[in-house]
């Protein structure tokens, strides 16, 4: 790859790994790489567990840690910025490898738009570096504060899934530190012999959505998306109910690269599923109004320093009453129909990133994000309706409820997206009956051929896993080849029986 421009990542000083609380006591440093016992949670702040956290700066340290784990039979798991909601990046009593130090851009070709980057680099730092140079990441989730490794391990999707697919469809090569050794892997579909592409395609796809259990991704090569500005050209409209929203999305989504609907979950009866639909595309310079139309300023991407929720407030600030009030305001504020409105990337893609540690607003017990996908068709659509009804009945306030249409999935056995509808709900943890209600929703979702997203999960019944992910055994077979001793283990893997080691 041509070494056109050398990029320097914006330092991530204020983007430390979420929710790391150092425990009292001196770091136990029996070996050369220092480690500290810490209590970890995911973004939802549920199920804390303590592990020895090691921050790595160089890829060789990962190989050394894996060798050490194999010797001591103590499990380990990689961790990025801790933005998965549940226990995916935790390994109680074991070793958690904080990969955020592997944040270098190793190689870039800004002619063709390809970048080779350390797995710990955040999408935030990449955007800061790339947007002014006319490139954007191919897929971004609802927050910029995720690492490349986390994006790969969850095979993340964005508002453009119906148009561009998920993250791994834009990755051309991975370097993976697996317990059996370092492995280069690429997807078989874009085979080109001199590139070594097509090698270890099964490992490539098992790593996509593999939740860190097939090895630690050290670096990745990613194809970028050309953009002219840091602005979006946005159309917004209100939808009166769920049917209205879904039919607008079905008929109109293909005209937009990005599309998502925010749903007012507390609206019931006739208004059930009322929504604000936001769709758009990257703005060209010419699309912008004259006041914004300056080549350099229009591509400026410098999110300002963030307000941070300083402590866990007593009680929950986000409760059914406040959420209902917010939803009402949000819905009324939205225009009935507005087209061609310019909006900066930062607020279009990552509206919540302006507030640091907003997850604390849910109080001591944290929150659960329930994200489901159901295939297109009447069964799946019925499930969406029943989920919203159920939330309305139990007055379970969801502060965030997002509906989106997915395009077809990719070859990865554990990748979440499938052609259909995805609904994501943020639910305060603690109310009586919440666990049982979500268990019921799981059954409905699975019966319709759908699944829940592991990157958001913190409570699924293990029995549901192979129904929701029917290719689980394929994943496990690849995993056993690269990690025969079962060194890579997370709390999530233990909770869900993801590894499938018991039977062997």
């Amino acid at each position, binding site marked *: 790859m041509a070494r056109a421009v050398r990029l320097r990542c914006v330092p991530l000083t204020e983007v430390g790994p979420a929710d790391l609380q150092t425990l009292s006591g001196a770091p136990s440093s029996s070996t050369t790489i220092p480690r500290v016992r810490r*209590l970890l949670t995911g973004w*939802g702040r549920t*199920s804390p*567990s303590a592990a020895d956290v090691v921050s790595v700066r160089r890829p060789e340290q990962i190989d050394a840690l894996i060798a050490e784990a194999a010797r001591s039979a103590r499990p380990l798991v990689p961790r990025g910025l801790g933005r998965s909601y549940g*226990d995916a990046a935790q390994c109680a*009593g074991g070793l958690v490898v904080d990969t955020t130090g592997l944040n270098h851009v190793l190689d870039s070709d800004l002619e063709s738009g390809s970048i080779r980057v350390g797995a710990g680099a955040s999408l935030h730092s990449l955007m800061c570096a790339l947007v002014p140079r006319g490139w954007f990441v191919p897929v971004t989730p609802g927050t910029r504060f995720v690492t490349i490794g986390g994006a790969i391990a969850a095979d993340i999707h964005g508002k453009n899934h119906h148009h561009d697919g998920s993250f791994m469809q834009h990755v051309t090569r991975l370097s993976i530190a697996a317990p059996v050794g370092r492995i280069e892997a690429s997807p078989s579909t874009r085979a080109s012999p001199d590139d070594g592409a097509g090698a270890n395609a099964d490992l490539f796809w098992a790593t996509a959505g593999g939740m860190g259990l097939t090895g630690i991704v050290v670096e990745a090569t990613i194809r970028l998306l050309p953009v002219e500005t840091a602005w979006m050209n946005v159309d917004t409209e209100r939808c009166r109910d769920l049917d209205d929203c879904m039919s607008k999305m079905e008929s109109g989504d293909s005209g937009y690269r990005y599309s998502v609907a925010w749903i007012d979950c507390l609206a019931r009866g006739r208004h059930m599923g009322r929504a604000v639909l936001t769709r758009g595309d990257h703005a060209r310079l010419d699309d912008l109004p004259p006041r914004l139309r300056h080549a350099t300023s229009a591509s400026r991407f410098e999110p300002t320093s963030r307000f941070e929720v300083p402590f866990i407030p007593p009680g929950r600030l986000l409760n059914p009453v406040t959420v209902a009030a917010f939803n009402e305001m949000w819905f009324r504020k939205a225009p009935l129909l507005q087209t061609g409105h310019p909006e900066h990337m930062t607020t279009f893609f990552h509206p919540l990133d302006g507030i640091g540690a907003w997850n604390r607003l849910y109080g001591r017990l944290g929150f*659960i994000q329930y994200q489901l996908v159901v295939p297109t068709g009447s069964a799946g659509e019925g499930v969406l309706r029943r989920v919203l009804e159920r939330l309305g009945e139990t007055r379970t306030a969801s502060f965030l409820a997002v509906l989106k249409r997915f395009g077809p999935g990719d070859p990865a056995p554990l990748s979440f997206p499938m052609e259909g509808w995805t609904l994501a709900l943020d639910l305060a943890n603690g109310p009586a009956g919440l666990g049982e209600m979500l268990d019921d929703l799981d059954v409905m979702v699975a019966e319709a051929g759908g699944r829940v997203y592991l990157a958001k999960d913190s409570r699924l019944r293990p029995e549901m896993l192979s129904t929701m992910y029917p290719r689980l055994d394929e994943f496990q077979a690849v995993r056993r080849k690269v990690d025969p001793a*079962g060194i890579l283990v997370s709390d999530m893997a233990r909770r869900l029986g993801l590894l499938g*080691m018991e039977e062997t």
Partner: protein
Amino acid sequence: MNNATGMPQSAVVIGGTSEIAQAILRALAARRLQSVVLTGRDSSHLGEVATDLRSLGVAHVETLVFDVTDVAHCRSVAAKALALLGDSSPAGSSGGIDLVLVAAGMLGDQPGDEADPIAAADVLTTNFTGPAATMLEFAGILHSQGHGRMVVLSSVAGVRVRRENFVYGSSKAGLDAFATGLSSALAGTGASVMIVRPGFVATRMTAGMAPAPFATTADAVAADVLRGLERSSPIVWSPPVLRKVFAVARLVPEPLWRKVGR
């Protein structure tokens, strides 16, 4: 592993034949419970409880004979329980012990205990010394595994000790205080302690006694315990109203307490 709503997949029970413990296990079986190690004195009774749990869908149930007063053996029992839950599968793929339920206890016979120091000491050992030593052993395991919860059946009898049952009451007061201290010792380690303070519960322990005010059932206690797990409560009163009742009871002057406490 305990999930986001506090539901465990594996549990060890000290006093596995306790009726309250059985009610809690049945309620947990309906949620996530998959593996249980029951410990206790009476192996055939433990076997019956195990059969019942299996019929409720708990996949792995094992029993271990352990008299909680036999503190010399609490270490080996804890190690065996961990091995049964954790080491049956390859490197760390099981989550170890999610929940330790400490239910062993005896009411004693107050007049008899007052007359017989050995009988009184037996109550104290069964309700306090034995459970405390066992809890320490399991706390060490939970601490090193970095997660897990200990649920301890204390009693309102230990919150304000009554003349009528002060041997039992003081043993529960000691247990409760010990659990409180252990809870702070474990703060921030991923392991935690939940203290359960039931009032009068209709079980074989209280069979034949006249129910006290706010009497409840083992199933109701179990429901309160599950709510406590969901809410990560450090203390659970069962029924919950007893928290307020005992907030007042604590303040009642001793001469008056002697009268109302009967």
